[in-house]
């Protein structure tokens, strides 16, 4: 018991002595959005961070009722979502930030699957390939319903499968 305690203390010191990085830093498919609250001037209305452990549990629990959902989730490492409710004055900053992130993604060989800039909204969808699989997906949407949405999914992704599962399993946002 004492031995364990000392090991824990030492390992804590060890981690303090090294850079305190996010666990997924450097993992292909992971995107650091930076300080979004600082850029948008607002705190997020929705902030979700689901790691591999939780996703595995949900996957296991869903296996009987929805095998496709279970399969999609079982191969994911992380789902992160930030949603900001912004007024007309703040949306340009959010758009600018999304554009900066988009350029950085392209430099890092993320593929732009969808890139839409219209008067009402800006939508970016990017995929990161690792070998012959999709290792990451990043979605940024600014302007729809006054929202700025930043989402990053890491893991072994089948975009079509994820799309089907999202359409089926997602809640109705109009009735929240």
């Amino acid at each position, binding site marked *: 018991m004492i031995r364990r305690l000392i090991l824990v203390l030492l390992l804590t010191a060890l981690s303090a002595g090294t*850079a305190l990085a996010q666990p997924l830093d450097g993992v292909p498919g992971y995107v650091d959005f930076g300080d979004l609250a600082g850029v948008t001037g607002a705190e997020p209305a929705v902030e979700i961070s689901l790691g591999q452990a939780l996703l595995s549990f949900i996957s296991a629990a869903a296996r009987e009722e929805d095998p496709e959902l279970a399969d999609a989730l079982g191969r994911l490492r992380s789902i992160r979502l930030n949603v900001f409710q912004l007024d007309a004055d703040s949306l340009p900053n959010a758009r600018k930030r999304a554009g900066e992130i988009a350029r950085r993604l392209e430099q890092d060989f993320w593929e732009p*699957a969808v890139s839409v800039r219209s008067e009402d909204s800006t939508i970016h*969808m990017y995929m990161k390939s690792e070998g012959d699989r999709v290792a990451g997906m990043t979605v940024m949407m600014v302007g729809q319903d006054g929202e700025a*949405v930043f989402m990053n999914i890491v893991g072994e992704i089948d975009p079509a499968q*994820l*799309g089907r599962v999202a359409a089926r399993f997602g809640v109705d946002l109009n009735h929240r």
Partner: protein
Amino acid sequence: MGNTENWYEERVEAYVDGELAGGELRMFEARLELDPDLRASVTSARELQSALGALPRYRCPPDMAAKVARITDTEPRRWPLRVAAAIAAAGLALGLSLGEWPGSSPEPHVAAVPEEIPADELAEAREELALALAYLDKAGAAAGREVGSQWIKPVERTLAAVEGSAG
């Protein structure tokens, strides 16, 4: 330009690099004989290849060597790793030696991933997942409206393009 022309145009560079093979190569060469525009593209691609290779390169200024040599006057900045390694080594040594204390457990106990999480935590996680997927669907639907098709189609085209034309 139709899809057929695109198919050939997209393979001009691969052809110039000698990376088309088999059926693709035969199709491309067959088309090359018949299509002057494609031949012009291949000629341009070859000229471009040559012009790129002929662009000047640059040599370091002569004083770079002296500036860089001064770098080795100081020790490499590796101390966080050294400290961490030292702590880890100390921890390991201490841990091993503590194994002989009377009353300590004879076998090392490694913290395991919990086999269960509380039901309310799982329920909360499911709700968050449903919300996250809803936003993914919303973005997909918005993108689909803008591009005039289901959003998954441009995603699949993008992925196919990355895997595709290397030959």
